[in-house]
């Protein structure tokens, strides 16, 4: 059995290793190189792909919860969705959650994920008190930002390249409803979009869906959705049944015209400039989780997500150029998600920095990587960076320009003999 990532590209052969306990895990690490931990397979590219994969997901025990402080101790294979199922009814929610709940806690740390509240709460690592990790020296250690800051900063956002996270203690936050008040703002162009983000900065959650096939003076038009939890005491959160895409769509199903039609419908269904809705947690945070295997929509050749971020001072100009380039190429993207981020943290490879990030999905097809190379040039020109968790093709040169701590990370791996033990296709490509 070979494992794939969410993008279903590339498809490679790999050996999958299971472990029942730390002793077996340390033996696996001792005996093999080119190892990479794998959670629920939701990273898009090749950050969790290697010839030797360590399967962490079966390790899904809840260990402890402290009602006073909201500190939850779980094994690394626990899914965020499982945490929600157990704790939303008791009035607790994740401090930081990405746009899917179908990732493991270990994966959330390794990608140092962020969500719609990055401008307020920062990355996932901000809610991590400590974790246990099995390092290349085959011993497990407890790591926190206070006691072992180097290991913490290398591991959070380190894409599994420092070892296997075994379990973690994370803080949850109190909520008093499973519903949010959402405000949807419809904008006409990029300038209005930026103004809307600034105007609603005090809202804890915000994200924009952007129509990246719009042309001319409509470039950058979007639906900005901002929200905050309600306070109505309604907490009866239950797992919803999901529909599932049963097989890969033919690859022609997604083309310029079908995406254009989707975007037109999606944008057009919102009539007013500013409208208000009451939505639940799943609709607000995890709209795509309602459709199982939605990655199959892109066909058997797979897809990738291109996510970059530009420092705030260059965001407007850079985004305008990039959106124009995409629009001219005619390559469609259903989901183009724009967000204004808060300040960067100190982790060596965490993606966020203060500025605007755009994420776009593309099916893998001829000419795509050429387009993405051209986008890379614009990103580099404006001192931006690419998100490893989504990436499957960025070059070493482009990647390293975006991350000032990259040599600290490389050095740390080398000193701790992690650089040969833990490797992914991605780490080899970008030289980390």
């Amino acid at each position: 059995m070979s494992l794939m990532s969410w993008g279903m590209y590339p498809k490679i052969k790999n050996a999958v290793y299971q472990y029942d306990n730390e002793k077996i895990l340390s033996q696996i690490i001792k005996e093999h190189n080119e190892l990479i931990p794998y959670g629920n397979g939701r990273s898009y590219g090749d950050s969790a792909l290697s010839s030797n994969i360590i399967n962490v997901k079966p390790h899904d025990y809840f260990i402890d919860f402290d009602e006073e402080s909201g500190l939850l101790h779980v094994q690394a294979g626990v899914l965020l969705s499982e945490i929600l199922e157990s704790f939303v009814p008791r009035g607790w929610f994740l401090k930081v959650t990405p746009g899917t709940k179908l990732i493991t806690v270990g994966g959330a740390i390794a990608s140092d994920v962020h969500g719609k509240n990055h401008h307020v709460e920062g990355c996932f690592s901000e809610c991590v008190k400590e974790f246990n990790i099995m390092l290349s020296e085959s011993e497990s250690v407890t790591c926190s930002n206070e006691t072992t800051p180097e290991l913490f900063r290398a591991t959070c956002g380190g894409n599994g390249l420092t070892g296997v996270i075994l379990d973690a203690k994370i803080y949850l936050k109190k909520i008093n409803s499973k519903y949010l008040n959402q405000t949807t703002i419809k904008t006409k162009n990029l300038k209005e979009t930026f103004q809307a983000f600034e105007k609603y900065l005090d809202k804890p959650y915000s994200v924009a869906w952007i129509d990246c096939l719009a042309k001319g003076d409509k470039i950058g038009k979007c639906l900005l959705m901002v929200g905050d939890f309600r306070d109505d005491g309604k907490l009866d959160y239950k797992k919803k049944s999901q529909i599932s895409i049963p097989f890969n769509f033919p690859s022609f199903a997604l083309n310029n015209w079908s995406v254009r039609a989707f975007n037109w419908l999606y944008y057009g269904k919102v009539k007013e400039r500013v409208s208000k809705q009451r939505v639940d947690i799943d609709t607000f945070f995890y709209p795509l989780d309602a459709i199982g295997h939605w990655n199959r929509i892109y066909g058997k050749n797979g897809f990738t997500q291109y996510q970059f971020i530009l420092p705030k001072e260059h965001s407007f100009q850079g985004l305008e150029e990039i959106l124009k380039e995409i629009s001219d190429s005619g390559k469609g993207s259903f989901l183009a998600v724009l967000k204004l981020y808060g300040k960067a943290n100190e982790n060596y490879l965490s993606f966020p920095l203060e500025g605007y990030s755009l994420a776009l999905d593309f099916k893998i097809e001829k000419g795509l990587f050429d387009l993405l190379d051209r986008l890379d040039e614009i990103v580099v020109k404006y001192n931006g960076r690419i998100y490893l968790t989504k990436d499957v093709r960025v070059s070493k040169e482009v990647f390293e320009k975006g991350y000032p701590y990259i040599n600290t990370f490389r050095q740390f791996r080398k000193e701790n003999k992690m650089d040969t033990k833990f490797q992914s296709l991605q780490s080899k490509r970008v030289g980390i």
Partner: protein
Amino acid sequence: MSYILIIGAKSDIAKATAREYAKHGYDLYLAARNAGELEEFANDVTVRTQRTVKIVELDILDYKSHQAFYEQLAEKPLGVISAVGYLGDQEKAQTDFDEAKLIMDSNYTGVVSLLNIIAKDFEHRRSGFMVGISSVAGDRGRKSNYIYGSAKAALTAYLSGLRNRLHDAQVYVLTVKPGFVATKMTEGMDLPEKLTAQPEEVAEAVYKAQQKGKNVLYTKWMWRWVMLIIKMIPEWKFKGMSI
């Protein structure tokens, strides 16, 4: 509170089922051999659901101990779920009768011994439900696993009879026939994705079917039709096949 007794509680299906019932507000007795190994799991269920989870030692092959096992449960369970199962080694079992007997006793004899005792109590109390995890392997004997399959066939027949007997006492019996399930038992086998269920799917289906009072459940659902077709193949044709 109301307890559910899960026997063979170390299996992946049993664990997923335990979490499912606890999620719906039931307390649990988890019974297995070397039950101490279940402590971390019991804690997991408690942290997830705030339910009480008690671990009880049970050797399904030690028939004489079964009466005492059931008597020691201070509060009698509302329902029992048997997830006892041992796939064994078919080739070995063909020549080594000890292996064949172990497969038969684990999957059938031991379960009958214990369920007889519980059935008597439920019948007397005129309440309760019993869930037996059998297998599609019991629907027709095939060369790749017919010792296991024959034991499961016996279990299926036993559960069917039990359902018939307990009907008047309003005790419900559910026979579960999982097809392929991604568990430790099937680790390393190359299973077709569309026909393979996750233990959590089986657990959800078991809970729903039991609550609705269904009699026989196939998981995934298409196994009902797969097995119907396999059962319809005439014996003269079937005997030459490799499926």
